[in-house]
């Protein structure tokens, strides 16, 4: 073995005769068996990376012939020999790559492998974020959020948010608030996802956010009647907004916001005490900017009236009677008017069930209240009425009605007719059984009062579903068939009277040409049939739907029927289904019911008469008088205003359950 160091080789030729070349040829060889020092370690410029890994290491030294270069190894396999102390590996596969390096000296000695550096290579971009705006219109920093992206490689590191194409943020979460105060206007936001290796996804679909920091102008004025005895009704001119547009208004009373509305008026039905109230209104735009206050408006409010002679009450009904929001402990209401379905009281022919009614009576007595019991026998009349076997051989002929009315009646319903003799037979049986049952509760000396706590006003006319006998229906087309006769109505004064007329043989064109008075006369004929058939029981007639053209019909009732049938209890009911505002206050119908109550009070006080030929719009000035014309009423004290006010929570509760309605009832008794 040659020792390490410098050695000299010499060669000369010799011929066959032994002669040798005159000189030697000389070659100097350096022998080096000592490896260079091991590189201290490999350093990666970046990991993870989306490009070729760049590696470097400190130089090695060699005591012998000196370092000539380095051998790069990827995952243990040599990939290149280099003379520098760095290397870029363009062929690195995706995933984790472990790099080591060995130094080489001029003699070819290799050092041991250096400590490794691991470089994660990821050339795949994350998925594209799906972005949504938190608010499409905003008054403050626009905010967006997005579903997190996924990355098949090293994982999402952060996102980049662009406003109108300009990067504005690099959040690591999946939401961003652009607090850089962009200018008012419409801005488009996109988001990209960036993984830890630097791969960036394509931009998301843009979301558009309108930034509006300019508040609307304040409403320039505020109007309301003062003094007033009804709920103050405020109105104001529309405000203007240069940005996203006026979206609504907030109403303030004594500086406290009591309501928001999208229209330029508001009725404050929430007052419970007389006094002076100051209102202001502020406009809001779609971005939530609020204007300064409008000029203030002070309203003097006083509505307390005590009057004798008329009962008012609240009736609340659900699809299942006597449950839910029907509040028999209502503090200031002395008459409650539950509505029962016939089918609930008499589920089978001759089989009666009065337990629910008994429970109501017990609750009313416990709280010192009285009941006005009403029974509906309209479209929700028991099915057994129409079967010859289930009705004891007396099936009822019904009107099959198909309606296109988009309101309360829609589709096909079946309604028994008031003049139907078989109906009157079954109904008389029900009333007789009820009268017998109620007699147990005490004094029934007055014919219309079955017991001390129960007043009986059967809904004696068939009606639509769940309602008392309507004096008008809504708009729409009605096609009815009764006992083989059919006809079509396309008028808004369709009512039970028309069906009666139809049954008498009139054609639809006839009805269309009839005057209001003729319709009323027809109606009265129907009432006659009913009243005369039910004389055996202390019955009365309940009317409902005092709206629209029904008001004119009511005039006929008031002017004729009440006086023609003395000693009967009349029930005039109008549905109170006011618009309920977002804050629970009542909308326009609250005004209407207030006017209704006020008209009753006026009539009670003046003892006025019913003029002939009044327009329907003036019905409220004649109806109370009509009630009174029947004679004396029971001497009960009434706090009408209190009743009006306290009704409102019941209305609000009714809105929640959807099928609850409230009605105000004015009940009088005609003179004997």
């Amino acid at each position: 073995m040659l020792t390490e160091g410098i050695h000299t080789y010499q060669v000369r030729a010799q011929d066959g005769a032994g002669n040798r070349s005159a000189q030697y040829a000389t070659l100097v060889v350096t022998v080096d068996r000592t490896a260079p020092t091991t590189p201290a370690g490999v350093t990666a410029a970046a990991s993870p990376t989306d490009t070729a890994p760049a590696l470097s290491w400190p130089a090695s030294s060699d005591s012998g012939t000196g370092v000539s270069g380095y051998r790069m190894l990827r995952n243990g396999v040599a990939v290149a020999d280099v003379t520098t102390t760095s290397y870029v590996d363009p062929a690195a596969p995706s995933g984790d790559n472990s790099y080591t390096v060995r130094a080489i000296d001029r003699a070819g000695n290799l050092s041991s492998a250096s400590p490794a550096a691991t470089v994660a290579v990821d050339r795949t971009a994350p998925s594209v974020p799906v972005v949504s705006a938190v608010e499409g219109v905003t008054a403050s920093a626009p905010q967006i959020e997005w579903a997190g992206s996924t990355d098949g490689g090293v994982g999402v590191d952060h996102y980049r948010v662009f406003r109108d194409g300009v990067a504005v943020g690099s959040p690591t979460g999946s939401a961003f608030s652009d607090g850089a105060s962009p200018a008012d206007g419409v801005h488009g936001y996109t988001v990209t996802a960036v993984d830890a290796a630097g791969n960036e996804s394509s931009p998301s679909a843009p979301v558009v956010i309108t930034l509006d920091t300019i508040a609307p102008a304040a409403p320039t004025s505020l109007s309301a009647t003062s003094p007033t005895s009804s709920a103050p009704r405020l109105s104001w001119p529309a405000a203007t907004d240069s940005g996203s547009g006026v979206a609504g208004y907030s109403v303030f009373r004594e500086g406290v916001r009591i309501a928001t509305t999208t229209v330029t008026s508001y009725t404050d039905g929430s007052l419970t005490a007389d006094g002076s109230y100051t209102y202001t209104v502020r406009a809001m735009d779609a971005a939530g900017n609020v204007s300064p206050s409008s000029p203030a408006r002070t309203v003097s409010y006083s509505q307390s009236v005590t009057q004798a002679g008329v009962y008012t009450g609240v009736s609340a009904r659900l699809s299942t009677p006597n449950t839910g929001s029907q509040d028999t402990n209502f503090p200031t209401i002395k008459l409650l008017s539950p509505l029962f379905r016939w089918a609930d009281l008499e589920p089978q022919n001759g089989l009666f069930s009065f337990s629910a009614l008994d429970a109501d009576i017990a609750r009313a007595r416990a709280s010192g209240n009285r009941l006005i019991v009403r029974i509906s026998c309209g479209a929700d009349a028991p099915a057994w009425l129409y079967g010859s076997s289930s009705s004891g051989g007396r099936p009822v002929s019904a009107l099959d009605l198909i309606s296109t009315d988009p309101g309360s009646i829609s589709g096909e319903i079946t309604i028994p007719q008031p003049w139907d003799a078989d109906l009157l037979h079954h109904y008389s049986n029900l009333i007789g059984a009820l009268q017998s049952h109620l007699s147990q509760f005490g004094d029934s000396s007055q014919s219309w009062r079955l017991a001390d706590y129960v007043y009986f006003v059967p809904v004696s006319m068939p009606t639509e579903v769940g309602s008392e006998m309507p004096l008008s229906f809504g708009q729409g087309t009605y096609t009815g068939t009764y006992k083989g006769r059919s006809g079509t109505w396309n008028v808004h004064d369709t009512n039970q009277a028309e069906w009666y007329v139809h049954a008498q043989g009139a054609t639809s064109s006839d009805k269309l040409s009839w005057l209001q008075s003729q319709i009323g006369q027809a109606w009265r004929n129907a009432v006659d049939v009913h009243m005369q058939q039910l004389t055996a029981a202390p019955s009365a007639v309940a009317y409902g739907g005092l709206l629209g053209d029904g008001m004119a019909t009511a005039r006929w009732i008031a002017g004729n029927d009440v006086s023609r049938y003395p000693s009967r209890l009349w029930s005039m009911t109008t549905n109170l289904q006011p618009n309920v505002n977002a804050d629970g206050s009542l909308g326009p119908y609250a005004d209407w019911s207030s006017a209704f109550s006020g008209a009753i009070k006026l009539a009670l006080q003046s003892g006025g008469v019913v003029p002939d030929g009044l327009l329907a719009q003036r019905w409220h000035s004649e109806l109370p008088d009509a009630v009174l014309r029947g004679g004396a009423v029971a001497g009960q004290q009434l706090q009408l205003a209190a009743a009006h006010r306290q009704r409102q929570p019941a209305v609000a509760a009714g809105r929640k359950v959807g099928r609850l309605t409230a009605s105000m009832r004015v009940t009088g008794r005609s003179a004997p």
Partner: protein
Amino acid sequence: MGSIRRTPPRASFLAAVLAAVVLVLPQVADARVTSTSTGASAPAAPTGLTAGRTPTSIAPALSWNASSGAIGYRVYRNGSQVAKVTTPTYSDSGLTVSGSYRYAVRSLSQSGLLSSASSAVTVVYDVIAPSPVTGLSGPSVTNGSLSLQWSAATDTGGSGVAGYNVRLDDVYLGDRPPPPRTQTPAC
């Protein structure tokens, strides 16, 4: 070249192998022999003539078997007598020029008759050194075995290059025959 092999040391001497050159000597005419055809008979020609090493760079050393009855011998180089000797040996120190020389001897009887010529031997006389080795190459640095290469030397003296002397650090390693010229010295 390029073959780096680790090999065991080789101490054996590799002798040169030379091909013998056989020359055919022409018959030497001797007037004295041909003129004495009566009286005593001519002695027999000497046998066993050898010339020592050939090729050679020193005086060829001839020797042959003694002939009975001979009183002397005549030595011929390329047909010309170059020496008279009484013993059956002769060293031809008269050569100065490298070349191929043919030798034969005759014996001289007491009666003065020369024998016919012995069988001839040829000697290659070479006093010209081969050309120096050129083109010696090999790694300047190594961590193991190495190979040396050089160009073939030439020899004009007639004997041809028989091998090469290799030294490492002034120590003689041995000779290497001409072909092949790439060798791996022990180291």
